[in-house]
């Protein structure tokens, strides 16, 4: 039954050797070409950079941003020692301050991508504390604070000279462009092919810079959400069953998507519709 369904897909398959640096360049060029009025750093403000009416609503919100409570909570949590006397600061370079732009990293010992959310929960578990839910609340608060201390610092994701790192990058890219769910959408269907367009009057955010603003207070959620929440929500919106937060695919996806936004400043925590 299936053969005719995808017959329309053109067979143009390009060379398979991944070249992340060239990818990032092409990715950024695509978006700046699509939105010639925008500067690269504008993309970290998502849909707000694309529409004047929305930009005004955003400016109003930023006067007293809705993520403020989460940010305060994150700051308090971050400074509070664990039961064993250690704290988050002990788990991270530079005491965890101003380092958001370096995550995800590739852990050559483990051979896998480690996101900031994962590193935070590993820090907790290493110090005898139970892990937090990945999608919101405490995890959003902690990452909000860590992003806040890193605002303005450009994403600086590194792909070490390790075939596993390149494979993880490539796997993330594959996930990003792969159509899934009953609606047959990939991440790219919305956030590469149609940013700036409205889907039921919501303006789609460009993929470039989308993670720079994480975590976000989303009006639609009525609260904060992490990168994990963003990914799982996107899957559900295409009528796909989401993977577990921090599944390998999501880690790789975050690695890819962050890497191609290298050079764009961290703007999180953010507020989104």
């Amino acid at each position: 039954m299936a053969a005719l369904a995808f017959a329309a897909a053109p067979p143009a398959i390009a060379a398979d050797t991944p070249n992340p640096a060239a990818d990032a360049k092409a990715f950024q060029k695509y978006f700046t070409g699509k939105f010639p009025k925008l500067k690269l750093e504008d993309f970290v403000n998502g849909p707000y950079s694309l529409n004047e009416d929305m930009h005004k609503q955003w400016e109003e919100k930023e006067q007293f941003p809705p993520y403020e409570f989460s940010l305060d909570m994150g700051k308090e949590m971050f400074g509070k020692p664990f039961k064993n006397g250690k704290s988050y600061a002990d788990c991270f370079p530079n005491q965890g301050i101003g380092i958001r732009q370096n995550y995800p990293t590739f852990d050559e010992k483990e051979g896998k991508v480690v996101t900031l959310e994962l590193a935070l929960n590993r820090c907790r578990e290493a110090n005898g504390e139970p892990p937090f839910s990945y999608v919101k609340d405490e995890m959003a608060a902690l990452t909000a604070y860590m992003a806040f201390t890193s605002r303005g610092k450009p994403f600086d994701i590194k792909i070490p000279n390790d075939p596993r790192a390149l494979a993880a990058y490539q796997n993330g890219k594959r996930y990003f462009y792969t159509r899934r769910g009953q609606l047959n959408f990939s991440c790219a269907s919305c956030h590469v092919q149609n940013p700036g367009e409205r889907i039921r009057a919501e303006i789609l955010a460009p993929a470039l810079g989308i993670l720079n603003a994480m975590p976000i207070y989303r009006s639609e959620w009525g609260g904060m959400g992490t990168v994990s929440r963003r990914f799982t929500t996107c899957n559900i919106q295409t009528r796909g069953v989401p993977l577990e937060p921090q599944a390998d695919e999501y880690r790789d996806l975050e690695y890819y998507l962050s890497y191609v936004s290298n050079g764009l400043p961290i703007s999180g925590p953010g507020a989104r519709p």
Partner: protein
Amino acid sequence: MNITHKGLGATRRVIVQGAASIALAGLGSIPFGLAPAFAAADDKYPEDAFKQKSEADAIKSLYGKTAEPSDKVKLDAPEIAENGAVVPISVATTLADVTSISLLVAENPNALAASYQIPPGTMPSVANRLKMAKTSNVTAIVEAGGKLYSATKEVKVTVGGCGG
């Protein structure tokens, strides 16, 4: 998806227990019996006005009179609300002797959204964020010198899918 709602952390207060992640399904109010205990007598909460369904009934309950449109009432609201859950709306006026400013959303289950008492010495302008169930006229009422003046603007509301 299974979004687990963790137990409230030590830094959260009981009264601000977060709602589960739900879409804005509709608005309205159920009768409530607790009036604010500490407010001064002349600052009484207009409970009845907030229970009225229609804009006209709410204005009548709140003020006991009707409003006339005035270009001296400036109502600022987006053309298209980015999300009906958070619609930034502000009102300002050049009218003198303003004693209150109210905001009504005609298509909400209960039209009256907010009413602000403006004592002497306070500027006749206010900004806030309101919920809108759907596309609707938003009306600002300014009470000045014992009379009511209004301005109305339509705000389009859609609830989104694959956005942000």
